[in-house]
């Protein structure tokens, strides 16, 4: 069991931020999270970032790191960084690590290019067929899942509708109003059966976490968020090569590792975040993590079990579908988990002690899972 905690957590402003480059967003987030933790730049010896080289980021911030990680596996990178940083802290290789994210997805200021090489496998065997980014690739397995499980279009539409209840009125949420199933279904078709409101929005923003030993975190100004367990898993980088279109097999493996390390079962989980770039991902996630049986996820969400007042609060910031989505949303899923465990969320759930964050990279290609808690592991 790891003795590592999140001692500081913060998000930048969100939305349209044309005055901040991606590099600036990393720096802004880092300073906010350090202030939250009550630490300063000179305390930091480790830095992580995705897409952007962690040394570029550290230098812009004014840190000379002796430990760094630039693992770039899409939106779940930051969950992976937490796992790697915790191992490094546990091994004594680092003391205070900043896990950083900044992305100018909407304003594209100082945006690091993310090319798909024409001589790569995706460039050769997927792009020639009119693929256009995640809305056409991430969504592609869904009809097979619906066919295998009997999930209905109305149940798919219930995912953003139910999540909109959590974000209702939140001034930081990009989509801060309630929508119902009919409105979701009536929004413009992007890639049938997916409509606009079944797809995440695009925004600018950043976020940062300060990780250190549990011992040190206890002496700092904020309540520690303890890392009980973590896992990561990878499979096909191409959606067309997924071994089973109806299962998030990477989620199954990363979650099993995290739950095993944390010594918990689904019955111990008070609060859950499942990276929801598109409406079907929470359906796959609930099944993969074992919260529901095969084919039960659609009904489980539609019936309100994951909405305010339900037994399993899910994506309580509204998720990538309602709150924000900078492109690599995983950072914001961790942030909401930390807020719930510290008791400071906009839609705060009563009595959250154990929270699970399930991240996804690209199109089910990579996954990572964190088990977080506001008490030290037993």
């Amino acid at each position, binding site marked *: 069991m790891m003795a590592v905690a999140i001692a500081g957590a913060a998000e930048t402003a969100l939305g349209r931020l044309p005055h901040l480059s991606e590099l600036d967003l990393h720096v802004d987030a880092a300073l906010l999270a350090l202030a939250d933790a009550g630490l300063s730049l000179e305390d930091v010896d480790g830095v992580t970032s995705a897409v952007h080289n962690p040394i570029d980021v550290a230098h812009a911030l004014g840190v000379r790191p002796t430990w760094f990680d630039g693992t770039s596996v899409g939106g779940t990178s930051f969950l992976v960084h937490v796992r790697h940083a915790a191992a490094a802290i546990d091994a004594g290789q680092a003391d205070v690590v900043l896990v950083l994210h900044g992305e100018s997805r909407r304003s594209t200021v100082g945006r690091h290019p993310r090319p798909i*090489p*024409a*001589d790569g*496998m995706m*460039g*050769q*065997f*997927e*792009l*020639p*067929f*009119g*693929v*256009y980014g995640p*809305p*056409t690739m991430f*969504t*592609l*397995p*869904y*009809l*097979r899942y619906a*066919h295998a499980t009997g999930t209905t279009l109305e149940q798919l539409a219930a995912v953003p509708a139910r999540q909109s209840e959590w974000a209702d009125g939140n001034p930081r949420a990009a989509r801060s109003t309630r929508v119902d199933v009919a409105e979701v279904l009536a929004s*413009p*078709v*992007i*890639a*049938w*059966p*997916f409509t606009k409101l079944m797809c995440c929005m695009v925004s600018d923003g950043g976020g940062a976490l300060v990780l250190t030993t549990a011992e040190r975190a206890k002496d700092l100004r904020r309540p520690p968020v303890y890392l009980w367990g973590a896992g990561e898993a990878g499979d096909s980088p*191409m*959606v*067309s*090569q*997924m071994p089973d*279109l109806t299962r998030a097999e990477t989620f199954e493996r990363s979650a099993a590792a995290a739950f095993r390390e944390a010594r918990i079962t689904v019955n111990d989980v008070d609060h859950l975040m499942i990276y929801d770039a598109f409406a079907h991902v929470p359906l796959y996630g609930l099944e993969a993590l074992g919260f529901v049986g095969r084919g039960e996820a659609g009904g489980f969400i539609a019936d309100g079990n994951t909405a305010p007042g339900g037994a399993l609060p899910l994506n309580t910031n509204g998720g990538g579908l309602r709150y924000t989505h900078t492109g690599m949303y995983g950072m914001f899923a961790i942030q909401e988990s930390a807020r719930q465990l510290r008791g400071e969320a906009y839609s705060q759930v009563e009595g959250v002690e154990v929270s699970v964050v399930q991240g996804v990279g690209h199109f089910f290609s990579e996954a990572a899972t964190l088990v977080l808690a506001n008490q030290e592991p037993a």
Partner: protein
Amino acid sequence: MVPLMVPASSMSLPVIDLDAATPVPTPTTRPFWDAAREGRLSVQHCDSCSSYLFYPRLACVECGSRRLSWVETSGRATLLSYVIVHMPAPGFEEAAPYTLAIVRLAEGPTMMTNIVGVEPHPENLVLDMNLEVSFENRGGWVVPVFTPVVEAGR
């Protein structure tokens, strides 16, 4: 310049600018694209464990053998999943809406493709339906696409 063996189909996607979607072969993948240009759908077959492989590899992902041969497939496939794209990729604007699909070849591997020859409507796109390969010349590049098989007696 290799002569184009495959005429553009009358039911092809009207693709206008393929800069972003023209593949560049590597030595390992070139036999696939050369075969497509001649109207053949070819994949690798492992001489050691008899697996069929797609996309092209240097070695078999099942057993690690480097003894791979290129074989022509039956051209038959079934429809695994799809979306109907209404927000088209650059160059595909005039084709929208179009069907982006994952199919399973009779030999086992899966691949991304387009379903052509039918209107892109869910009523025409039944999962597990039988498909057969055809080839489209898109701006000088020949890609394998699939059409529904018209079953005898229907």
